[in-house]
């Protein structure tokens, strides 16, 4: 029989109806916080301007000509009569909290708060030394010591912020994270969005290990990424909500900075940034970390082997375990849900497993296959 093609076929229609009925919850408070700044301006948006008719055409033409002339004379900087450096912003600028701009090669010390056109906010924790590598579409810092905490407005498919540290590049898709150099290891805590840790690749897209929201990663001789929402939120969100420091952090740096906070050592003219000295910097407090993947593997494998009999037949599942700092584990999630006898059996076997102790609790998801009784 010929089908009436003006409506979907019943089978397709059935699925369409299910999809139509599906609602997706959106955290509007979070969207608004990302979209609007504290003054109600749209982050990353150009302020609309009013132009009309012929005046608009003339205005646009004059503006274009002026911009072209400025670009010809000095694409990035111009020096006025007083000898002070004036900055012509021809691309998104990275500025300090008081509005003073930074340029490539500037070294920034702990206590500074930086921002870029309302799209990125960066806090350098006390004891931090970083060099500005790029202030363009991708704000790029090189971290020599300490930690930076950043709130980055995501750009779909982009890497608006990156930090090179200890031979690795941490590329940020957004939105809130902390990057620290601790005892030669790179620690990345992400409270919102995600970051990628990989090898530096010039201006290209960074490829490597993804640290998603609610995870803390450690990258050194060995690498691990552990889910720990509480710790990630503590490290990132608390630092971002902290008030700016009243005075610069004391850093033994030659020449000693004498300007008021934030402290910046300008880049030398016509020369690449000097290699970083080794200042006597008190290392930032090490974050409390949960168990590493290496520590988890053995007890989880033992647990998976022991629960095989908990299901009457072959059955696949993903279990979520919450492992407290003292090593006691609790079953907190199942997908799909288990019936009561199976759950009791799994909990019984879990109670017999000993996990190592850690500084913080760890949440881990584990795919298991019940082999049946």
């Amino acid at each position, binding site marked *: 029989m010929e*089908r009436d093609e003006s*409506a979907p076929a019943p089978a397709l229609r059935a699925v369409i109806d*299910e999809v139509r009925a599906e609602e997706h919850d959106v955290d509007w408070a979070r969207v*608004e916080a990302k979209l609007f700044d504290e003054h109600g301006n749209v982050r990353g948006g150009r302020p609309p301007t009013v132009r009309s008719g012929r005046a608009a055409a003339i205005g646009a033409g004059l503006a274009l000509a002026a911009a072209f002339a400025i670009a010809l004379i000095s694409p990035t900087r111009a020096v006025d009569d007083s000898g002070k450096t004036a900055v012509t912003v021809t691309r998104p600028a990275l500025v300090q909290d008081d509005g003073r701009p930074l340029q490539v090669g500037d070294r920034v010390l702990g206590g500074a708060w930086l921002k870029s056109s309302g799209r990125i906010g960066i806090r350098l924790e006390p004891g931090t030394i970083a060099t500005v590598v790029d202030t363009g579409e991708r704000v790029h810092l090189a971290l020599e010591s300490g930690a930076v905490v950043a709130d980055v407005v995501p750009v779909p498919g982009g890497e608006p912020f990156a930090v090179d540290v200890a031979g690795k590049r941490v590329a940020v898709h957004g939105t809130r994270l902390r990057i620290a150099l601790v005892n030669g290891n790179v620690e990345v805590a992400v409270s919102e969005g995600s970051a990628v840790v990989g090898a530096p690749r010039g201006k290209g897209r960074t490829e490597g290990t993804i640290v998603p929201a609610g995870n803390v990663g450690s990258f050194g001789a060995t690498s691990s990424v552990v889910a720990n929402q509480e710790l990630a939120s503590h490290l990132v969100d608390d630092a971002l909500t902290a008030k700016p420091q009243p005075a610069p952090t004391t850093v033994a740096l030659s020449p000693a900075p004498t300007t008021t906070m934030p402290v910046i050592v300008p880049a030398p003219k016509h020369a690449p940034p000097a290699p970083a000295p080794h200042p006597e910097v008190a290392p930032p407090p090490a974050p409390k970390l949960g168990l590493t993947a290496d520590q988890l593997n053995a007890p989880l494998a033992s647990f998976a082997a022991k629960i095989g009999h908990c299901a009457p037949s072959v059955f696949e599942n993903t279990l979520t375990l919450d492992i407290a700092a003292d090593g006691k584990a609790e079953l907190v999630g199942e997908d*799909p849900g288990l019936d009561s006898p199976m759950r009791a059996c799994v909990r019984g076997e879990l109670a017999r497993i000993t996990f190592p102790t850690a500084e913080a609790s760890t949440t881990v998801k584990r795919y298991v296959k019940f082999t049946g009784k």
Partner: protein
Amino acid sequence: MSVSTAALHPTLPSWLDPRAATNLDRVATSDGDAIRPSHERLTPEPTDDSAALVARARDGDRGAFRKLFERHRGDVARLVYRMVGPRAEIEDLIQEVFVQVHRSLRDFRGEARFSTWLHRVTVNVVLMHRRAEKSRPVLAEEMESGTVEDLTTTMPDVEVERRKRITAFFALIAEIADKKRVVFVLHDLEGKAPSEIAEIVEAPILTVRTRLFYARRELEEKMKAHPLLASIVEREGGFAGVAQAARRESK
């Protein structure tokens, strides 16, 4: 000389004939829920009010832009969700849409309804995101991270099955070409009329219908081959015909 599309393309159904200019719209009216369900209609477009808000926002009135955001954010969120499925980056995409709207307000000349223009911006942002995403390798950790919330939730079996079907269907939608997918989402999921879709995608109405036809056919083929969705095809009697289903319902 005028030749109907059906004559040029024997495989195309008669409703693609350009002479049947409002064929789908008539079906929508007579079939009600099939094409444009009443509960799915967008917020009634207060044209004058939105136009005034747009004008004020263009003048730099932050309050006006926030009102536009509050009024239309639900529509944007729903369209983004239906275009990308249950993904972690939906909120980022919504934010990006409104950033683009703010940047482009001066380009909105009021020739189309604001909601139509907003849908066009939304579609473009999502497509740009997908293109950028395609150029980036998807790592195992990233694939797993998208299911974090689901894994910690215990749901009844029926609900689990429904979620799995929806996720599977979104995966099928993602497999079809951008142009066809956009038309399918706007028409069959959003309930928009072909004339408005034509404005959104800036294509002739006939092209919209052609894309819809092929999108549905492609999805039907994929459903037949999908382990989770094939049972629905079986239950509904395959894709043999709407008329058969109608007869079953009447019985």
